[in-house]
């Protein structure tokens, strides 16, 4: 494979200047990579796999028979809300009916809306560190204050109740947990979730549980929805979507599940912010959630194979990592290279045309860490690892 770089590649200082926050840094790197024809993108969490054919066929049918022409209600197609509720009862043990579900235009809109509905200026929201910084803007717009809860590699990035307990104040309104985690690929263990649930009840805070990667868990990991625990449904907002599970990022369908009295209010926020989610996308989502699920198992098997390739390769390169138990990322420590993660990401893109996000795009202190996505075929991952080895050979300190 030959590689090329644009003649006018920005300097690392210019890149720093472009990227005033974690999200902007990731987008700046993606835009640079997009200019390189043979770049290997191990950055964004956009599955490279196709949306399964039965889902596309369902969308096509909805277009042909005119259902896609009819605007859906603001809260979502009734059949889709029913199907989501049924899935949450069956797979997650969450006691929800259709009136406890709101369909949104992707998981990110779901988070944006529920933060605007829930958080008042001055409220504190506990957020695991490192974090998916794209949520920062929603919290900032609501006037909330993020309080970062450390998660540690030695705990496999589990979110420990003890760490949370130390940070609870009278202003604590909510805890945002993301399990499996983006970027760490860690999961919040069932034991920790039970402890967190007790804290939430004791200190009367709300839990926002982002479970968008729930279908990609690797042994010995185990997924538990906190809303299924005793006394938690009443104080938990579960957020999920179709993008990751079914390789449907382009369709923009997510959802929120919570007590109906919260969903009624959230629906007004949805109506005010975007009115409704595209009907054709909702019919595709309906086929995804009610149709055959073998595709999800196939995706899982694919990511499992890729994960092994990447972990073996990183070990050979001298990187350390905690075992990724979920999602489709590896969060790896590159300290052994003697190069900061930002600099290494820059060098990998400029010299090897491999796009990897530095840990600093998920929190300022993660200067030695890289988030590597598994969203390329195995042979491409192998090629990326070969290219990375070349860069490290030249620059390792």
């Amino acid at each position: 494979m030959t590689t090329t770089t644009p003649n006018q590649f920005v300097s690392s200082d210019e890149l720093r200047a472009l990227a005033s926050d974690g999200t902007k840094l990731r987008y700046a790197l993606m835009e640079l990579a997009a200019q390189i024809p043979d770049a290997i993108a191990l950055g964004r969490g956009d599955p490279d796999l196709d949306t399964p054919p039965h889902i596309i066929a369902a969308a096509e049918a909805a277009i042909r028979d005119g259902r896609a022409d009819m605007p859906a209600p603001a809260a979502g197609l009734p059949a889709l809300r029913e199907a989501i509720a049924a899935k949450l009862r069956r797979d997650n043990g969450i006691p929800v009916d259709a009136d406890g579900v709101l369909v949104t235009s992707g998981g990110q809109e779901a988070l944006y809306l529920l933060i605007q509905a829930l958080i008042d200026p001055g409220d504190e929201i506990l957020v695991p560190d490192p974090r998916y910084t794209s949520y920062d803007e929603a919290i900032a717009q609501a006037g909330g204050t993020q309080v970062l809860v450390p998660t540690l590699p030695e705990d496999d990035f589990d979110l420990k109740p003890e760490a949370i307990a130390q940070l609870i104040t009278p202003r604590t309104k909510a805890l945002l947990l993301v399990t499996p985690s983006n970027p760490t690929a860690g999961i919040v263990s069932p034991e920790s979730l039970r402890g967190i649930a007790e804290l939430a009840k004791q200190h009367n805070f709300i839990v926002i549980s982002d479970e968008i990667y729930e279908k990609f868990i690797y042994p010995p990991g185990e997924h538990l929805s906190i809303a299924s625990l005793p006394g938690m449904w009443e104080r938990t907002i579960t957020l999920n979507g179709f993008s990751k599970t079914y390789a449907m990022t382009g369709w923009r369908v997510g959802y929120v599940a919570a007590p109906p009295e919260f969903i009624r209010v959230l629906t007004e926020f949805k109506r005010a912010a975007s009115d409704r989610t595209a009907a054709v996308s909702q019919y595709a989502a309906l086929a995804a959630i009610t149709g055959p699920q073998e595709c999800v198992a196939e995706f899982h098997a694919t990511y499992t194979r890729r994960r092994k390739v990447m972990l073996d390769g990183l070990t050979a390169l001298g990187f350390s990592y905690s075992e990724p138990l979920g999602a489709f990322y590896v969060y790896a420590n590159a300290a052994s290279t003697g190069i900061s993660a930002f600099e290494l990401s820059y060098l990998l893109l400029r010299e090897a045309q491999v796009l990897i996000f530095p840990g600093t795009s998920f929190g300022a202190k993660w200067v030695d860490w890289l988030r590597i996505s598994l969203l390329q075929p195995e042979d491409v991952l192998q090629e990326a690892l070969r290219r990375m080895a070349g860069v490290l050979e030249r620059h390792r300190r």
Partner: protein
Amino acid sequence: MATTPLGRAVAERGKHWLHAADAPAGLLDMGGDTLAGITPDAVRDATIDALNKHLGDHYARRPGIAPLCRAVADKLAEADIAVDADKDVVIAGGPQEARFVALRALAAGKTVFVPQPAPVDSYRAAVDFAGGTLTWFDPASALPDTNGGLLVLPNPNPATGQVVDHATLAHLAQWAVAADMSVIADETAAPLLRPDVALTHMATLPGMAERTLTLGSFAAIPGMGAWQVAWFAGARSLVTPVRDLKQAMTICSPAASQYAALAGVAQTATDVAPQQIERLEAITALLDEAGVPYREPHTFAYVVADVAALGGGDAFAACAAHHGVQVASGSAWGAPNTVRITANAATLGDALPALEAVLADLTPKEAQP
């Protein structure tokens, strides 16, 4: 009474923004600001083709798929509005999202001037979120004395069914320049204009290109309301913060819908106007017969009638609901004596006899022909 911690946390929120809601089950929808209908075959075929090529599977280019941004820029160029398709055009997930992100990003701490009447429901939440202050004004009277602020101008105006005439628009533009205001030109209803009605774009007036963000929509194209595609474009200083918020809120707009919109760009008012005008005339004939005044509609989608003599917009809407039809009372947008009736193809046949009954019920016996 809220019974859960979550219910209590939000018990007093979100109730005051919107009068409109989904049409209640069982009512014939004749009150919306878009036309329900059948998506044109060319749009269906193009979208299905895109889906089968897997163009809808993955995140789209964040500002919007490139050919659609170019198509928007080309349309604007035809109207003498120059924008860079790569940097100054962003595809939104429907007209309401375009309005929301524009106001939420640009109205922070500002006085937001909206002419009365206007579909203020569509603006209020974003202005609230932004910490702005929404202020009505009457374009026909002395304009408010202000320095700075934000002018929001729906044109065509879904509250009146009319375009803003050139002289009024020029007057407002001069005011905006003198007061150093930014302007959101909400032109999302423009695809509904009758072919013989000209729209003056705010951004084309002197001094306005650099201070105007124009909102447009594909949802107004009959049959495309459900696809949720709109756009915003204009001065980069205005586009950039709005784009950043849109992307923070939803990353990008649905790819499948964008391919539908791309095919829909070719749809013009002349394709659908004649049939729609006939439908609208069926409604205005009933109004004429009942002696209910209305201004000649500039769109082929709806007529706004003056129902003061029939008890006002709320009374008319309530009576219509009793007869199985949903219409929109103007009380939601500061014109309580008006009602908007939309000529939806799918429901018109059943709705006409019901509207006739409404008019008969509300017209004083001595005034009936």
